[in-house]
């Protein structure tokens, strides 16, 4: 089987991961043994490639077509995708539910903003620091998270999102006495002649998003990914076959937090603001990440991106839908969320995949769908955990 040299399409083989573990176990990459990722029928593959090419062209052309205001909204969708991807690694693939990723996003945002405002760093240099710091905070949270699961974990992380703006507003002394940092516009100036600042910002977001999505894609197909999924579906069984439970969970937590941190860092570039004045902002963000992940398709690679774009689109367009009744905007938004979950219970990507699976030749024993994410409510026992239900594809 050949693998087309297209970056956006899907490969038929598990790619060799970028992680050392994956290299340490070369037999995996041979495709000789049955993988949990089934081979993809040719027609489906073709459609995927087509979609991939179309998306690439659109993505590269969009910033030259749209106004700066619209580019900003697109860029917002891109950084939201990155954060949702981070959450997807943790919740979708590893089964640890977090509704506190807004806090890691905030750590990233404030790292970037503080370095730029107080230490005159250039923006691009702050991104790795933001990723590292938020990853570190994620690591610190990951350890106690080992002890708690499901609903409890969701609550502890919720606490993080509530706490973050309170603590930040206590210690961040921003301009005008307000706990809000606003780096100079010049700090984000385009580094390429011929690209306007908004276009440059868009491409920075896009490039980083592509790198992080490919990284995530490699990761979940490698040894680490199998460990993550095994822990999600059957935690105790996973330990008996030699998965390092603590390492996998804590590692995923840290990585996931770093993704959110990068998103936060990029948000400073797009919105030119790191804000701790709004006590519910980081809770709202946490919720947005979760919503983007679920409506796009949890435990899929493209899901978070699709979900993020839908979310941003909805948010922009529910605002002035009913003239004079702006107060209903959140209700329309909420109703749209419910409608999406009703129509596409596996998220948009899950739904499309199901459709493609029908189109493609149905090769027996190769279900196209992947295991669903773990439960948010599997506290008393594991019976509600739906992992391992592979009944569809027909």
């Amino acid at each position, binding site marked *: 089987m050949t693998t087309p040299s297209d970056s956006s399409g899907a490969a038929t083989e598990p790619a060799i991961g970028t992680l050392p573990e994956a290299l340490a176990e070369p037999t995996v990459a041979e495709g000789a043994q049955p993988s949990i990722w089934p081979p993809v029928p040719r027609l489906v593959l073709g459609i995927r490639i087509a979609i991939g090419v179309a998306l690439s062209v659109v993505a590269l052309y969009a910033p030259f077509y749209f106004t700066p205001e619209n580019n900003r909204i697109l860029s917002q969708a891109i950084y939201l995708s990155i954060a949702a991807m981070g959450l997807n690694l943790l919740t979708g693939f590893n089964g640890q539910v977090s509704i506190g990723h807004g806090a890691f996003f905030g750590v990233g945002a404030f790292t970037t903003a503080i370095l730029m405002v107080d230490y005159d760093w250039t923006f691009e240099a702050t991104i790795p620091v933001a990723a590292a710091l938020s990853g570190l905070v994620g690591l610190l949270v990951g350890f106690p998270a080992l002890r708690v699961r499901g609903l409890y974990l969701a609550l502890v992380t919720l606490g993080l999102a509530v706490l973050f703006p309170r603590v930040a507003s206590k210690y961040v002394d921003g301009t005008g006495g307000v706990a809000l940092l606003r780096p100079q516009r010049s700090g984000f100036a385009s580094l390429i002649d011929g690209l306007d600042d908004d276009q440059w910002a868009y491409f920075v977001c896009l490039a980083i998003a592509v790198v992080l999505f490919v990284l995530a894609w490699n990761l979940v197909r490698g040894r680490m990914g199998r460990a993550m999924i095994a822990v999600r579906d059957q935690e105790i069984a996973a330990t008996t076959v030699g998965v390092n439970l603590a390492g996998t969970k804590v590692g995923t937590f840290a990585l996931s937090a770093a993704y959110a941190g990068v998103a936060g860092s990029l948000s400073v570039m797009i919105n030119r603001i790191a804000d701790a004045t709004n006590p519910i902002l980081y809770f709202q963000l946490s919720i947005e990440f979760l919503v983007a992940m679920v409506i796009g398709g949890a435990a899929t690679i493209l899901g978070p991106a699709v979900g993020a774009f839908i979310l941003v689109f909805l948010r922009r367009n529910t605002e002035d839908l009913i003239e004079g009744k702006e107060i209903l905007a959140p209700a329309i938004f909420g109703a749209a969320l419910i409608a999406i979950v009703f129509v596409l219970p596996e998220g948009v990507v899950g739904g499309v995949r199901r459709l493609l699976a029908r189109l493609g030749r149905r090769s027996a024993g190769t279900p196209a769908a992947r295991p669903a994410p773990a439960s948010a409510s599997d506290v008393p026992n594991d019976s509600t955990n*739906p992992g391992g239900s592979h009944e569809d594809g027909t």
Partner: protein
Amino acid sequence: MDGRTFTVTALMQLFVEQVLNGIANGVVYGSVALALVLIFRTTSVLNFAQGEMALFSTYITWKLADEGDGFGLPIVAAIAISMALAFVGGAVIERVLIRPVEQARSPLNVVIVTLGLFLGLNSVAQLIFGTDPQFMPSPFPEGSIELFSSGGDTAVIQKSTIGMIIVLFAECALLWYLLQRTKAGLMLRAVASNADSARLHGIRSGRMLLLGWAMAASIGALAGSLVAAQRTGFDASLMTTVLVFALAAAALGGFDSLLGAVVAGLVVGIADALTIQYVDALDGIEVVLPLALILVVLVVRPTGLFGRRTVERV
């Protein structure tokens, strides 16, 4: 502190007063936590909309009871009607919005639906009932009871606080009886802990989940109305401020213990008040404390203070 000399009794009295403040808030957290525990025990769902369902019912209570803008019913009657309406409303929500996604493979879908409800109920409540803060009459007598006095200063407890404590423990006992001692309660718990296996035993799980949502909504209506009556005024943010503390209380109490929720609610309330009085470094961020408490307790005892351990099976 200024240069006044404080006698031991004065310091002691301040401490007692702050504990009483804490209890007054603690009963509020406890009553909401109780509703959270109930819905968790009967449906196994993390319901983001619990607070806003309660808010909506609270506005209905207010509309029924208010003399200026509403129907001027006695407050006790208003709460009873509101609880009945919430019971029906909770059942409708379960049947129409929750059940269709309950069968989905990802339980996160239910969470998204409750989030949609959370957003929707809050803004619809503001549309119908207005954005201005409102006053909720209290079902409890006004005034206070003197606990002790020393040197002209007295420590008093509000009668409404005592009323809340009584209601809370009565509610707790009633729910405990319902869940632990009646057949319906047994079936509710069976469905919540394992719907498939309950179904195999002939329990109609759909009906039980319906009942669970209806009861939780009804208890939420009671909690919301009483919380609003404890406050000087309430608006659409009533539950958002309370919910964090209530969740902390529910988690501390172990999420499946009714008594645990009440006791933990009091613990959280008292800890908050004492932090405000004695820990200046946490001024304005007292919320750190209950969250730190949860973290410590969960790390030491992952099932909470009162929760039971569950056996892991592969």
